[in-house]
Each structure stands twice: as C-alpha cells, then as structure tokens.
C-alpha cells in the first residue's frame, strides 16, 4: 500500500480528500531514489482549478519523459486543510510520492493570474521554505516561476530564485542539464542560480538592482553582477509540431473544471486586441498541423477515457484547418459516446452548423464578445467585431433555433464615454429586437429571447498597448456599471435582457499587482500574514485586509492604477524582451487614442517585432 502524508482522521474530516491523495489515472510513479532531480510543480490554487490547467500537464509530461527527473504535483491546500496542517505542523507534500516539498530540488510555480499570489506564499510557508529567496539555505529547493504573470514578475521578485520568461518547453532541459553538471562538480545552490541566470529567458531577480526617482517611477534597472544579461528574451516554441504534447494526461477522480481532453490547436493570435496580454506576449501565431492534432486526439481519448474533447487557443476560428479538424472529430468520435465541445468560435454559418450537430440547440446559448458597446470604442480596442457581424450571426442563430445569447463586455476602457457605455444596452436591445422581428410568433415555441450581457472591468496589463492607460478607481468602475444598468431599464425589451457586472474591489487589486514593482511585494507579504488567501474566491477575498496592508506598508494604490504614465517611463517589466517592441506598443497606443484600427497579422504585417522569432504566421506564405 502507498503511504499517505495525512492520517485517515484528517482525510475524513476535510472536504474532498481526493485533492490530497494522488494515485490518479496516469499519475507518474517513479522511484525518487532513481532520479537526479526532483521537481515539485505547483499551481497555487485548489486542486480542481490547477488540474484543469493545460500548461502544467504539458510540462509534467515533458519533465517526466526524462529518466533523471521526477516531476510531481502540488496545489494549494483548501482553507480547511490549511488550518489542519498549521495546527498539526504538517509540511506540505507532493501528491505522487507524498514526500515533503522542502526535500525537492526545485519548486516551480505556474503564474496564471495575479489573485493567486498570496497562495504562493501559503505554499512556501506550509512547505517550511523561507518566503524570501535571500533567506533560503543550501537544502531549500530552487523556487522558479513561469507563465503569463511572469511577464511582470516584479511584485513577486523577493520570493523567487528564478523566473522563466516564455514557453516552458524550450529551456527546461538546459536548466536540468546545468543543474546536474554543477552538482556533479560539487557546486552549490547559489552557483546553480547564478549559472541559470545566464540561460536565455531566465531571470534571477537577486542579480538586478532597481533605483527610483523622486516621483516614485523607476530610474534604473540594471544587473549587479558581471555576466548577467540586461535584457531577458522570452522563449517560444518556433515550430509547434516539434514540441512534445501530452500523451497520457492525468485524470482526476474529482470532477475538475476542465474535465475533458484539451487539444491545443495553436499558440498566439493574429488579432491584436489592444487590451489583451496573451494576444501580445504569445506572438507570433503558430499552428499545429492537422496530422499532429489527429494523432494526439486519438491518443489522449484512448489514454484518459474522457467522454469529451475540446479545442484550446486564443481564437479558434483563425486556425487554418478548423473545418477539417472539427469534421474529423465529429466523424471519428461523435456517436462513440464522445462529446465534442467547441470553444467560443466566431458565429457564422459553419460554426452554427457544427454546433447544431454536437449540441442540443434548445439548451445551449451563443456567445459573442464585442468587449465594447459602440463601434468607436471597438475601434479603440481594435476588436474587429462589428455590429453588422454580430447581428448577422445572431439572425442566423435565431433561424437555427437558438434563443439564448450571451454578450461579453469590458467597462473602464481608455477614451470610454457615456455613449460607449450605453451602447452595451443598445446593442443588447438590438439583438433582442432582431429575434422578435425575424422569428414569427408561431415559430418561437412560446419562448422569449434571452440576452445576457456581462461586463468585467478593464485592467491594463504589461506588454499591451494599454500598458500606459490610466485605470479607473473602484467608484468610477461602479458608476459606469450603474450607467449601463440604468440604460438597460429604458430598453423596450428589458424583460428579455439581463445585465451582470463583476466585483470592483478585486479588479483594483489586480491592477496594482499587474503593473506593480518590487515595492508591492511588501504589501503582498503583509496581506498574507494578515490572513489574505484564495483571493480569487469571493467567499475568501477580504478587501479590508489588503487595504490595511497598503496602509501599513505605505504603498499608494493610485500610483499603480490611476496614475497617468508618460511615454518615456521605465516600466518594471521593460527588462523583458517579449518580441513585441515598445515602439510598436506606443504606435498602437496612439492608434487607440485616434480610434484607428490596425489590421490583423494575416491581412498585413504591422511590424510588431515578433518576426525575430523566425516562425509562425510571420512566415506563413513565404516557405
């Protein structure tokens, strides 16, 4: 029998004990004594969220292909378990071997969203690893972070030994080889960290000094050790088909959020929405071949027994072989007890036809993401979706039997006026009117149309043209939401319309962490010590704790959120070369101010800078 880190009594007294057991289908079991490197991979949120993340499964599979590495998983213990572990002084452990994390060589965190940062401190704390990199001893694991939030790692700088900027598939082999080499020569932990800092894409915060001007902005950001690079270049997989994918995804016993086979069809996006960080940092767009995807679809369904397969990408409709792929999946698997779940596709004749084959039209709804209510504002954000396209799609859908529509918007964008806000209600109303105009009463089956509009609040992110934007205050966000809500009440068909908006406190905090610098780390630590944890879970988020922490640390929220940034300001993340150049982002910021649309990568190259990676859409027709 496998030994477990926790006693029966503990496991029987917490919610969902399966979060802490491991032993799932396809979990990799190795003899820890047979490997040179033990790597604990952490998604700092609850198991069911972490196990739904594709990137972690990709790296888990890739690392474990090496005989000399054993990669295991670890997640944030839920508050009930957190309490037990602190009370009983139990160290956090990895799921596979159930061994304590502090015995590992590496502890890697995937950084997917800012609001999980306190959970990183929780994982370090429960593992018995000093929170600050400078306090760690020879036997502590090397703590490394990667993922989208690593594009501005500064608010986390004191807590990490290393950050990996870019896609994990590229440099981890080099890191592992280097680790073994230095260990063989008798080198110590700090030798490894310093050597790793010279691998392309690797950033070791301790080797950089930051000085600030009197106004609080950065004066200089420079390496403090010879041989450490000034710029860190993001690492990307140039040819997607060369990258290893997952043959045997781990299949949880628990029903997790993403409980299906996920096929990543491409990385990157051609669209250039000006608010979107992913669309910029994953440039250029790189596709998988159809053959590659067919192979993995077979393998993964066979090896998991999942009853559903879905596609993953930033904009699936742009995938060159989408029709062939979707038809293949339907022909091959539909009718064999496998559901095909489609990601949000552009609504057109093709996608409606496909959806009618794989979904129950009566039960499903259509989703559009106009992101802004007026055409002017959609031009500002460079969202190439027009009212005409939306109404045409909705019309076709209504004729196809759908009567539920979801519309996603974002409030608080740069240049947004009352008219733009009210446009959200007006557009929703137009969609509803269209239904009643086009579908005769006898064909409605006694049903009304349902239009649900939701708005989130806009947070400016690094490496986007909006990185210079002034963010709204909490009150401004809420005022804008009330304006929209009020407008909805004036609509003729308001009984068919519904409007929801997100929480504003959390958005403000996300704004601070997204564009924060090293000084924000103190606030994070203070908030954690005061009890902040699982901040992305509304039932656990406590804004008062955070506000106190800002107060205690003397850190001004507005400096990071509502302040106007000048075009020549040095940003905390400027030391990273993400491919897209600052010049391009400035150009796009100016285009946004003039509501000028920039064509997508396939229409015309806009010279964003991502061409230097020598692959993907930049070279599509030039091979």
């Amino acid at each position, binding site marked *: *029998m*496998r030994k477990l880190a926790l006693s*029966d*009594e503990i*496991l*029987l007294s917490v919610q969902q*004990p*399966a979060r802490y*057991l491991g*032993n*799932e*289908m396809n*979990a990799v079991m190795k003899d820890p004594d047979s490997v040179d490197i033990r790597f604990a991979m952490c998604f700092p949120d609850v198991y069911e969220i972490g196990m739904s993340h594709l990137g972690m499964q990709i790296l888990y599979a890739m690392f474990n292909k090496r005989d000399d590495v054993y990669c295991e998983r670890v997640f944030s213990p839920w508050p009930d378990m957190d309490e037990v572990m602190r009370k009983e002084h139990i160290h956090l452990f990895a799921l596979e071997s159930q061994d304590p994390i502090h015995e590992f060589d590496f502890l890697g965190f995937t950084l997917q969203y800012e609001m999980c940062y306190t959970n990183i401190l929780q994982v370090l704390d429960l593992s018995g690893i000093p929170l600050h990199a400078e306090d760690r001893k020879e036997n502590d694991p090397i703590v490394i972070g990667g993922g989208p939030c690593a594009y501005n790692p500064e608010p986390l700088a004191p807590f990490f030994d290393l950050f990996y900027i870019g896609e994990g598939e590229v440099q981890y082999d080099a890191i592992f080889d280097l680790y073994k080499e230095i260990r063989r020569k008798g080198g110590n932990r700090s030798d490894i960290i310093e050597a790793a800092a010279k691998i392309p894409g690797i950033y070791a915060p301790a080797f950089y000094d930051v000085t600030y001007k009197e106004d609080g902005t950065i004066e200089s950001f420079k390496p403090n050790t010879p041989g450490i690079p000034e710029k860190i270049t993001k690492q990307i997989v140039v040819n997607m088909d060369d990258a290893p994918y997952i043959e045997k995804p781990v*299949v949880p*016993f*628990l*029903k997790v959020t993403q409980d299906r086979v996920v096929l990543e069809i491409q990385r990157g996006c051609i669209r250039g929405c000006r608010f979107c960080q992913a669309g910029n940092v994953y440039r250029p767009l790189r596709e998988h071949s159809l053959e590659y995807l067919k192979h993995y679809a077979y393998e993964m*369904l*066979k*090896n*998991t*027994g*999942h*009853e559903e397969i879905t596609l993953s990408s930033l904009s699936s409709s742009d995938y060159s072989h989408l029709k062939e792929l979707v038809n293949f999946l339907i022909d091959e698997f539909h009718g064999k*007890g496998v*559901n095909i779940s489609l990601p949000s596709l552009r609504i057109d004749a093709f996608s409606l036809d496909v959806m009618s084959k794989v*979904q*129950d039209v009566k*039960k499903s709804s259509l989703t559009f993401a106009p992101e802004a209510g007026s055409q002017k504002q959609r031009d500002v954000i460079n969202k190439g979706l027009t009212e005409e396209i939306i109404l045409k799609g909705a019309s076709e859908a209504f004729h196809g039997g759908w009567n539920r529509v979801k519309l996603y918007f974002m409030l608080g964008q740069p240049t947004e006026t009352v008219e733009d806000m009210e446009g959200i209600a007006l557009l929703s109303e137009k969609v509803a009117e269209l239904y009643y105009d086009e579908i005769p009463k006898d064909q409605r089956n006694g049903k009304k149309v349902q239009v649900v509009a939701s708005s989130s609040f806009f947070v400016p992110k690094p490496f986007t043209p909006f990185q210079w934007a002034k963010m709204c205050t909490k009150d401004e966000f809420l005022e804008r939401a009330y304006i929209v809500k009020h407008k909805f009440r004036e609509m003729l068909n308001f009984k068919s319309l519904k409007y929801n908006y997100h929480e504003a406190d959390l958005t403000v905090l996300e704004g601070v962490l997204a564009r924060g610098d090293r000084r924000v780390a103190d606030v994070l630590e203070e908030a954690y010590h005061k009890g902040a944890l699982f901040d992305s879970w509304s039932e656990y988020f406590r804004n008062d704790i955070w506000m106190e922490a800002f107060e205690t640390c003397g850190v001004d929220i507005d400096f990071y959120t509502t302040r106007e940034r000048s075009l020549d300001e040095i940003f905390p993340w400027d030391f990273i070369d993400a491919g897209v150049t600052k010049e391009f982002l400035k150009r796009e910021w100016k285009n946004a101010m003039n509501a000028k649309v920039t064509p997508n990568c396939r229409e015309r190259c806009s010279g964003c800078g991502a061409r230097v990676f020598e692959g993907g859409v930049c070279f599509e027709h030039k091979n």
Partner: protein
Amino acid sequence: MKFIGHLDMMRYFQKIMRRADVDICYSTGFSPHQIMSFASPLGVGMESRGEYVDIEVKSTDSSEEMLRRINEVMVDGSEVLSYRLLPDDADNAMSIVSAADYRLRFREGYEPEDWRDFMDGLLSFMKQEQILIIKKTKKSEKEVDIRPMIYELHEEDDHAIFLKVATGSAANLKPSAVIQAYMDSRSLPLSEFALMITRLEIYAQKKDDPSTLISLEEFGEEIK
C-alpha cells in the same frame, strides 16, 4: 481508494470502460451516458472486497480476457475480481440487494481498553430480542428496532468483528450503527474515526426462497 466518493467512483469506472475498450451500451440523446449501475454505494472511508456493478454491452470477450483488459488500465488500489454474464432478464443489481457482510476493526489509538470485556459485552448485547435506537431524520426522531436487521455477528481473529446486516432499499443498517448502539448501552463514547470498516460481500434474496441469501457473485456465469 476509500476516500473516493461514490459519484467519483462511478465516473472513474466510466473512464475505465472507455480505456479498456469495453463495448458498452450508451443511452441515446445529445449527452449519451453508459448503461451502468452500482449495486450499492459505498460510504467514503470504507474499503471493500465485494462491490458489484452491472453494465450492458453490445459484445464481449471471455471473462478472463476482459479482466485482463480492465485491470491493465486500473489504478493501484482498485481491481476487478470477476466478470460474469447475467441472463438477459436479470434484475438490476441495485433493486435486489438485501444484505452485506462487513469486517470491522478499531483504528490504532481507538481500541477498547479490554478487548475481551468489549467483545463479550457485545455478544450478550446481541442476545436481546430487541435493540432500539433513535433514528433522527430532518423532521422527526423515531425509535427503530435494529435487531431484526442484524443477521449475524461474531468475533474474528485479530480483534475483528464480522457483521451481516440488512442492506438495500427495503431495509438498510449501517454497520457502525450496531457498535454505536452497543457503546450507547454501556454509556461509552465512540469516535467517528474509531472504526475501520471493510465490506466483504453483497447478497440478494433467492427469488423462490426469500429466506436464503445468495451472493451477487453467484448470479450469472463465467464467459469462456
């Protein structure tokens, strides 16, 4: 495996069916599901050596081959012990379950101070004609006699207790309730973690002779 809840266990078996390429039947409609039913849900925290699940298949290999295929894709801690063909008119397992065997032991740190005294007391407690317990539901409390639901109780090696109790839709008795009733009668506490329980076997009543119990294993036949 004992910490995996019943619903998760069902999902696990559904995935196992697909991984082992069992030619299982599906319901029709937009979200087809496998025709599969468990005889009796096992509570979280219990182990078992005798669970039964009915499936409907379009075709099948021999029992031996199917066992090999299924067990090849199962995780450590779960194993299919037998695969048998039921007659087409067989009743659904869940509907015929009427009793089950359990083996109970005390978890380390929770053992009775004097095992002999505990066991002798339990055996004489069982000699009563009636054992009344208070059954609490959300709305009311009522007195129930559980003695008729206890078919057998005896001591086994290693300080273990064997229990055969009523299980199923007609009458159902949790094995821990028997020990709880006894402890209550002696005014002794029983921690919720005290007992380690293993289900050993599940029974149905014989159709023409309801007083005879036959194990579900005896239904159906080996596929050659």
